[in-house]
């Protein structure tokens, strides 16, 4: 029996090997190398010298790093709840029986297939002053007086809204698909039974649909927080981190430090700080979920 199990394990390993080799080479090894880099002064092309914990000490006292982390956190706070609520709303619309069902599913999901550059440039054209869609539309319905413009991209608050809206439009399709499939998993009998008991739509939604969606919501929240913390490209293209670096997320700072300031060691250190933040958040979420389950 034991022999048989061992054989199965070896066989499994054999099949896993091709993936494992690539995974180790391109994911695990760079991570180890990254840790090594944090202890050196390391430029784009060469290792300069061991500097111990200096990089870590500098990160702790570096205001720019904490500001950038804060900006990423702002984006998480702005994007995560909106992403979940909109995901549920769209799934509700697409889940209703209607001739337009297929149409809804397609149009809600399509933006997710665009590349970040295309999505961001579309956002840029929509929100830019004078010729942008939003300002032009506002002029058309006379909400915005002639000769005044809203500068969506260069005022800090508006820039955050713009970036969030573009990201929302671009990526909500993924959450929508997850919610839609979760909704289709909810057994019809439960709905039928509730209707027989005289529940109205409102009650059905809050008492049945939402509780059934709880597990997937937990998962989406976690994925969304991690994804939002890693925000970079759309902000880089739309605002460039401006005005005055007030929308610059941590990844942009890491990129600038590594590739523009030629200081890969310090950039690697920042990456590990972000890694630790994400690790703590994931652990916290895991712990909260498990505790709740224990209570039941």
């Amino acid at each position, binding site marked *: 029996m034991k022999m048989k199990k061992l054989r199965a394990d070896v066989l499994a390993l054999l099949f896993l090997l091709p993936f494992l080799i690539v995974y180790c080479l391109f994911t695990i090894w760079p991570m180890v190398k990254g840790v090594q880099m944090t202890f050196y002064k390391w*430029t*784009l*092309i*060469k290792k300069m010298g061991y500097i111990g914990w200096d990089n870590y000490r500098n990160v702790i006292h570096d205001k720019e790093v904490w500001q950038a982390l804060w900006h990423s956190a702002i984006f998480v706070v702005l994007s995560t709840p909106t992403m979940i609520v909109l995901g549920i709303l769209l799934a509700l619309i697409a889940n209703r029986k209607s001739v337009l069902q*297929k149409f809804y*599913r*397609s*149009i809600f*999901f*399509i*933006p997710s*297939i*665009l*590349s970040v550059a*295309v999505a961001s*440039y*579309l956002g*840029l*054209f929509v929100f*830019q*002053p*004078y*010729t*942008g869609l939003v300002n032009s539309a506002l002029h058309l319905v006379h909400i915005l007086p002639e000769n005044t*413009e809203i*500068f969506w*991209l*260069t005022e800090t608050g508006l820039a955050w809204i713009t970036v969030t809206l573009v990201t929302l439009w671009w990526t909500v399709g993924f959450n929508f698909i997850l919610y839609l499939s979760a909704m289709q998993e909810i057994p019809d009998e439960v709905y039928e039974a509730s209707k027989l008991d005289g529940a109205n739509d409102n009650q059905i939604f809050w008492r049945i649909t939402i509780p059934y969606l709880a597990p997937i919501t937990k998962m989406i929240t976690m994925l969304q927080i991690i994804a939002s913390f890693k925000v970079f490209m759309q902000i880089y293209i739309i605002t460039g981190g*401006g*005005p*005055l*670096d007030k929308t610059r997320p941590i990844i942009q700072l890491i990129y*600038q430090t590594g*590739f*523009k*300031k*030629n*200081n890969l060691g310090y950039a690697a250190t920042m990456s590990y700080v972000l890694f630790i933040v994400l690790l703590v958040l994931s652990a916290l979420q895991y712990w909260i979920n498990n505790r709740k389950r224990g209570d039941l």
Partner: protein
Amino acid sequence: MKKRSFGFMLLTLLLSFSVVLSACGNSGGGGNASSGGNESSSNSGNGSNAASGNAGDASDSGGEKVTLSFWTLFDGGDGDNMQALVDEFNKTHPNIQVKNTKLVYAEYYTKLITAVGNGNGPDIGISHASRLPDLIDQGVATDLNAAAEAAGVDWSTFNQNLLSADTVDGVHYAVPIDTHPFIMYYNKALLKQAGLLGDDGKPVMEQSEDGFMNFLKTLKEKLPSKITPFALSNANDDPYRFWWALYSQQGGNDVISDDLKSADIDKDKGIKAADFIQKLYTQGYIKKNDPDFYKNFQSGTAAIMMTGVWATGTWESTKGLEFGAMPIPKIFDQEATWGDSHTIILPTTSKEDPAKRKAAMVFANWVADNGQIWAKAGHIPSKPSVFEKPEFKAMPYRSDYVSVADTVKFSKQSTKTQQIRDNVSYKYLNEVWANKMTPADAMDKMQTDIQKVLND
């Protein structure tokens, strides 16, 4: 279910492809024209370039055939012109074959540095003069003196102002092929309408602070309100270049000290220059947050604009645009402007091959000699002798601004030039242009942050 979801996927894919395609079509022409250094777009054809194929060079490199890899960062019109130069060179030099690899500008330096670092760099590369000190410091750009001597390069045939930007302690690190200074363009039809075009086809403007302001004031009063008197972006490169020009016109000498170790802004001059430009924004001469100031000028809705000479080729290929080009007006004490220069470097290779290095220098010198091809995009050739060539003289506009090559105020040879510009100067000056910071505050903050960059 399975079947349905497959159909759904297919539909999604089809629809999304169409979205992707149409999106590409829209975004292609946009871009922020103010970014980067040389995105001159669409220069019409390469036409007949009748290069005076220096036949002597061909026999220079002996019987051996040498193949050289060449990495460039040019696209659009620049990319086409460089390819034309390479093709012409290969045709006239049977013993030297140059292979041109076009890299994306935004990634060029990172790729060059890493490739050279692990021994896979090209035989020939391009560098901006402002990036050269950094490349020398990192061991990417090499000493050219020996190779130049072997190839018979005569350094005295180059514009000396340009050459000095590529030389450190008598060692040549690069062969300049052009300079691309910041200049002024004007729309002749609009200036005429405002009564500001002289009989010689040049703007009627007194070259002084008040003179320039009055010029803009008249433009604003005389032209319809839809017309922008002065097209300029509201952030980053071009307003910074204008600030640099005006700062230098007062005798400002870069923002760092001569020993390159400390931040050294001449505060009063910096404030005066920034204040002058800020007024252009606040008094409505420059359109606020103009999303595309190139387009603004190109479509004939702006009277004047300022940017690098690389725009000349673009304006030339624009139908119905009657424009003129001239140096930045002398608004303060002396003529000066911002400028950078494209140079050819020989990156460090894992195995040094004198024959290849000599051949590479033959190529570099030949490119400089044939600057009339390169000048199509608008650049000023690095050898004054090119100005006398009939092909160069036949091209309009260029001769109106070749004199600028002598008044370009290059940045000092610091390895931090790029960083200071991108991470400090742009940041605070942008705030000044947006009227969210006073010029005095900006100078103080720049001084502090530049010191921080230099200490790193």
